[in-house]
């Protein structure tokens, strides 16, 4: 039925459609036909992390656990950054919500599954309530509002001392599975957080690849068109912020179990900024990048202390982050993906 008579740019067209074009677009957008490959890469990295953690020292295992937990929080950050393009500086606050909910419910004798169910319910409710005013903001104002939340968390923790233990902190009752106490350096904890990361990463990839992702990208990148074409922009934005809160809270609950003790100095604004740095360095559209970012900000600072003097760890960590930024806007995850695809695309072009 085409009435087209104009060939806009035939040379470009040759590589735009077809498998090569779709692969190239997929590498740029983080969606599309590379989805199975991305899932496979996440599984391979999971196997590597498990092999390193199960075969390594308890210190290394603990670092990998914390890094993977941070990666889960980064997945939440990425959901917002990749679709709406908004900066979330409250990821640490979301973690605090999950951590204290888990710690409080466990301290009241709740079973671990019930405590996690409470984390899910509380984070969805609180996340949605926080999102309602937040989604009315854009750009720097979103960053400022989330910064304010993150900034207030230590004081809020003290103010709610009946639940959080205030300055004195709150000990987390560690679960016992079989005869084993599950803490941050236990193999069971490593397996649990790695499996949890894989499941949440797969869910994130699928949501981003399918209709919810397409709708959110339209809302974030073409807001007037999204609105005119009937997308419920506000509801979609609230949904993605709630999803990010949920992932942050799950990460927080795992963190509470891993470290065994919570106090107001943990969930500071610095943690939120570190998680944002992890998002940017790893690449907001890559689950591999989320893991890299989580390990960088969660595991690297404590581990470089064994290599460089303690007084220089901050500088070394900063330099590592700066070097990672050379990977470009797609982050290290995007860079690795593009490099892996290069031979395939070159072959198809030829």
């Amino acid at each position, binding site marked *: *039925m*085409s*009435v*087209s*008579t*104009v060939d*806009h*740019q035939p040379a*470009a*067209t040759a590589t*735009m*459609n*077809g498998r090569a*074009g*779709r692969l190239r*677009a997929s590498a*740029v*957008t*983080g*969606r*599309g036909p590379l989805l199975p490959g991305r899932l496979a890469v996440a599984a391979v990295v999971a196997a590597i992390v498990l092999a390193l953690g199960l075969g390594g020292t308890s210190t290394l295992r603990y670092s990998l656990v914390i890094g993977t937990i941070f990666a889960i929080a980064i997945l939440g950050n990425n959901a917002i950054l990749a679709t709406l393009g908004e900066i979330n500086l409250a990821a640490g606050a979301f973690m605090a919500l999950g951590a204290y909910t888990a710690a409080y419910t466990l301290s009241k004798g709740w079973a671990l599954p019930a405590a996690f169910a409470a984390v899910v319910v509380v984070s969805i409710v609180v996340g949605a309530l926080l999102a309602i005013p937040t989604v009315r903001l854009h750009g720097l104002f979103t960053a400022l509002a989330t910064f304010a939340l993150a900034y207030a968390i230590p004081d809020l923790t003290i103010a709610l001392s009946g639940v959080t233990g205030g300055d004195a902190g709150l000990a987390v009752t560690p679960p016992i599975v079989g005869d084993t106490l599950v803490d941050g350096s236990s193999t069971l904890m490593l397996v649990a957080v790695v499996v949890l990361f894989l499941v949440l990463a797969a869910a994130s990839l699928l949501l981003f690849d399918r209709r919810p992702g*397409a709708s959110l*990208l*339209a809302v*974030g*990148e*073409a807001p*007037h*068109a*999204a*609105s*005119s*074409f*009937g*997308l*419920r*922009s506000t509801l979609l934005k609230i949904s993605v912020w709630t999803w990010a809160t949920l992932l942050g809270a799950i990460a927080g609950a795992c963190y509470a179990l891993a470290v065994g003790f919570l106090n107001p100095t943990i969930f500071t604004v610095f943690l939120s900024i570190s998680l944002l740095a992890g998002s940017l360095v790893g690449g907001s559209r890559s689950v591999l990048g989320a893991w890299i970012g989580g390990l960088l900000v969660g595991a690297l600072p404590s581990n470089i202390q064994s290599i460089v003097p303690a007084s220089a760890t901050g500088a070394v960590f900063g330099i590592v982050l700066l070097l990672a930024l050379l990977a470009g806007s797609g982050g290290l995850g995007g860079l690795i993906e593009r490099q892996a695809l290069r031979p395939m695309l070159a072959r198809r072009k030829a």
Partner: protein
Amino acid sequence: MSSTDPLLAGRDIHMTFGGVRALKGVEVALRPGSRLGLIGPNGSGKTTLLNVLSGVYRATAGQVVFGGRDITRLAPGARGRIGIVRTFQHPQLAKSLTVRENVELGARLSRHVHGRRRRRGDDAAKAAEALEHFGCGAYADGLPEEVPYGVRKMAEIARVAAVEAPVVLLDEPAAGLSREERDELIAAIRTLNEQRPDTAMCLVEHDVRLVASLCDELLVLATGEMLAHGPTPEVLRDERVRAAYLGEQGHETEIREEVG
């Protein structure tokens, strides 16, 4: 509602931005099958009127009515869902969605507008059909930033066409297109109009040749006021219109050619 009743109407529309009165008592009516061209010099209020009709702006005073229902306070999304769709002066395509996925937004809206139970695969088929119709099929898997500007403009119109909406508002669809692309656009819109004769179309455009080719009725705005309104040939011969908007020598020549 009889076939002569307006499907979409703006009644005594006023729009003020700070101290600037962008629209002053404008009346517009789109009946099923209307092909209305909205012309006027830069800053005359054409796009503002389109924004008021599509819900991007809420009129300072006046009423917007769709199918007899007052929709003045209805948000743009809700207007989209009842079948008022539009394009934008600058293409509004999500850069991380392929051209095909952008057009599928229109196909998805089509299900809301018509209340049809369609499978999702049908959205893809409808989007593909619209893409082919507007000559973008070869670029369907490309990202908007990779394709020529003309393709982006056409893809926006394809997205609107995929809705099969009762009201279509086109904001300068030919801006930035080459002469050949404009001819292609005219042919594609004509074919669509033939296929869906009941669709009401409002077209904002500076290209008089294009407007004269596609519209049987013109509304001319000047500094936010209605200068002339009527059948296209009459309006184009109107001395006031020539003086206010089309008075330049080049335009006069063009109009004589169009009007014959």
